[in-house]
């Protein structure tokens, strides 16, 4: 584990998440791949039920080069705690204990276990790859599905615009534990993500990274735009890059001018049905959030 900034030039050539069966252009798999390249050989990973475990552990095809286990869907945080305690008790030093869970596995069913793990201040790293729905079970709505998104359980029709709820504010919920380090990231800003991964690797207590991860299959987007679309989400203000450390929030990126929300959303099948009035609701929610962040965050 070194201190220097990890970039594409100096990162290891070793691939730790390779030969997996994620859909072509899967943003979640990019998030996992880059994280493991930063954390390296001495990583013990737990992944709950969800796309990344489903595509990585299909006997006899095992895509993880490092130690990894599928956890129960609700139990990522607690399994990580057990792994950390076990490794410490056995005197196995210099290890990273890392979770990769989806939005559903984190914000919904796994929230209790995550909260417990953060509360115990264990040295674990929890990465939520947020593809904004329960993808592995066929694109159902989660509490991180944004307003207006069509999912199989939030259909859009005459009466409803898709999901009528906004995204749960998970980043701040995590921060409210006064966690040692928390950050948001996007697969559209990979260097920013690498920086945050490197920081998390050095943190003594618990760290959490919430990465926005495109899902061409569930979102109805072209596979090649998985990175550009995730960048656009940040540029349009619908997602944000931030950190929480020492009790303070920092915004890492403040777009001078937002990329047009409508143009961004209409590129995605899940938002194709949106009316201008829905887009206004989304913009208003964004503006309210940004006003607060700009006022209170560094």
């Amino acid at each position, binding site marked *: 584990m070194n201190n220097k900034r990890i970039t594409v030039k100096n990162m290891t050539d*070793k691939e730790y*998440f390779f*030969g997996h069966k994620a859909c072509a252009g899967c943003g979640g798999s990019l998030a996992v791949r*880059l994280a493991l390249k930063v954390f390296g050989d001495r990583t013990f990973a737990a992944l709950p039920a969800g796309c990344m475990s489903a595509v990585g552990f299909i006997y006899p095809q*095992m*895509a993880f080069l490092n130690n990894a286990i599928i956890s129960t869907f609700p139990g990522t945080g607690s399994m990580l705690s057990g792994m950390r305690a076990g490794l410490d008790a056995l005197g196995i030093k210099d290890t990273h204990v890392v979770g990769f869970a989806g939005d559903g596995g984190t914000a919904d069913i796994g929230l209790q276990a995550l909260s417990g793990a953060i509360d115990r201040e264990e040295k674990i790293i929890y990465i939520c790859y947020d593809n904004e729905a329960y993808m592995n079970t066929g694109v159902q709505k989660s509490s991180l599905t944004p307003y207006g998104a069509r999912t199989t359980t939030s259909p859009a029709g005459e009466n409803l615009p898709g999901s009528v709820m906004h995204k749960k504010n998970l980043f701040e919920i995590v921060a409210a534990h006064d966690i040692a380090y928390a950050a948001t990231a996007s697969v559209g800003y990979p260097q920013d993500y690498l920086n945050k991964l490197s920081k998390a690797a050095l943190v003594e207590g618990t760290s959490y990274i919430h990465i926005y991860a495109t899902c061409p299959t569930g979102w109805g987007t072209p596979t090649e735009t998985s990175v550009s679309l995730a960048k656009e989400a940040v540029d349009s203000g619908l997602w944000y890059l931030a950190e929480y450390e020492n009790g303070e929030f920092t915004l890492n990126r403040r777009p001078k001018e937002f990329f047009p929300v409508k143009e961004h959303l209409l590129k995605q099948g899940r938002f194709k049905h949106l009316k201008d009035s829905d887009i206004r609701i989304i913009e208003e929610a964004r503006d309210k959030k940004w006003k607060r962040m700009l006022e209170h965050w560094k």
Partner: protein
Amino acid sequence: MDKPELKNFTKPESIKDYPVGPSFSGGHLVSVNSGWRTFKPVVALDTCTGCYRCYLVCPDGVIVKTEAGKVAVDYDFCKGCGVCAHECPFDAIEMVKEDLQK
């Protein structure tokens, strides 16, 4: 290239040869992903500047840095998503339709 190699795997004949519980060697690959592709990324080496943007953003980690400071693609595992071509700042990657006859 620093990634697991493809292994030959035959289903065990005896129960004794099964793993004890669902636990197996990591990085154990028995099948490729090349069949998923309809387009394949082809790198124009004369245009490629070796910026490694494509390497960074490939979700499957199948782009390799070459000794010449350029990149090559591991076609066994490339799924043809086109992210590399879309992200290359120098338009050095072209997505070419696979010859389905092959």
